[in-house]
């Protein structure tokens, strides 16, 4: 089934696409049919700069298990950063 559900979040940073680095301002997070990953549904993230057009995108499609592992790794990494570096 198509879930269509999408969480959108404003972000600040950079991503690297086929044309090189670009700033990313928005992310779409959704659990839906993937384009490439060999699974029925995946946790997908699009890192975007809508102002630069549809191709300004870095995309990942992750199994639910690996997405949870990634989320935990991100949280753990931020938590373990030396004091004062993460604001």
């Amino acid at each position: 089934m198509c879930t269509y559900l999408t969480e959108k979040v404003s972000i600040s940073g950079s991503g690297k696409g086929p044309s090189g680095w670009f700033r990313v301002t928005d992310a779409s997070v959704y659990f839906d049919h993937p384009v490439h990953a060999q699974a029925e549904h995946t946790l997908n993230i699009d890192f975007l700069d809508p102002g630069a057009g549809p191709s300004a995108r870095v995309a990942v499609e992750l199994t639910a298990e690996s997405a949870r592992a990634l989320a935990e790794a991100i949280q753990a990494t931020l938590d373990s950063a030396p004091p004062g570096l993460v604001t």
Partner: protein
Amino acid sequence: MYDAMLAETVTITGHNGDEIKAYSARTLQVGPVGGVVVIHHLPGYDRQTKEFTRRFATGGLNAVMPNLYYREAPGADPDDAVAAARAAGVIPIPDERVVGDVAGAAAYLRGLSNSNGKVAVIGHCSGGRQAFLAAVSMPLDAAVDCYGGFVVGTPPEGHPLHGIPPLAERTGDLSCPLLGLFGREDVAPSPEQVAELEQALKVHGKTYEFHSYDGAGHAFLQVDRPSYRPEAAVDAWQRIWAFFGRYLLSKGALCALT
């Protein structure tokens, strides 16, 4: 069987008079032949669905697939286009817009020089629901719903389709025979939902043909997905060709290229 065809991107007039791109695959037979509007799945106007579209042309029909995401991302790669549409908050595409784009695609097919005036619609996944939507919204000659979810039933709270009346409530408006192809292991539509839709078709005295496959779930026709089930897919394609042969050509002249 004369299987020459021409496939190319064309411009058609869609909903609200908008010009959108579409992938056209046309038999080079003089005709007259029928046409098929192909509605792509959620991942978009992609290579796989273009192959799906060409298959009809190699079998002696005209086919066209409107790019439902063209407005959000003209000229973009299909996967970038669906991402742009999702980021723009238009996923799922509003039903009214889908109907307008399918109507434009149908008009394109009827306007081809080798058209016999007959047009069918086929869609898979979200396109299956939209094929049913088109068939209750405009005059057509045949419709094929490949495992379209939420034709019946209420989507869960928070789902973008929650609150939209089930399309099955409009079964009385169905303008043409319906072929339904489903997997018994699917959850949207579940076997119970397929049975509910079948009951609605019976109540309204509609012509339909349903086939549900054991060992198959959602997207069993998708050859590049782990959901592909060749046994079900081969049979389903034979059903599609027979159905279109019955309703798109007066003499059943189609050759099944399965």
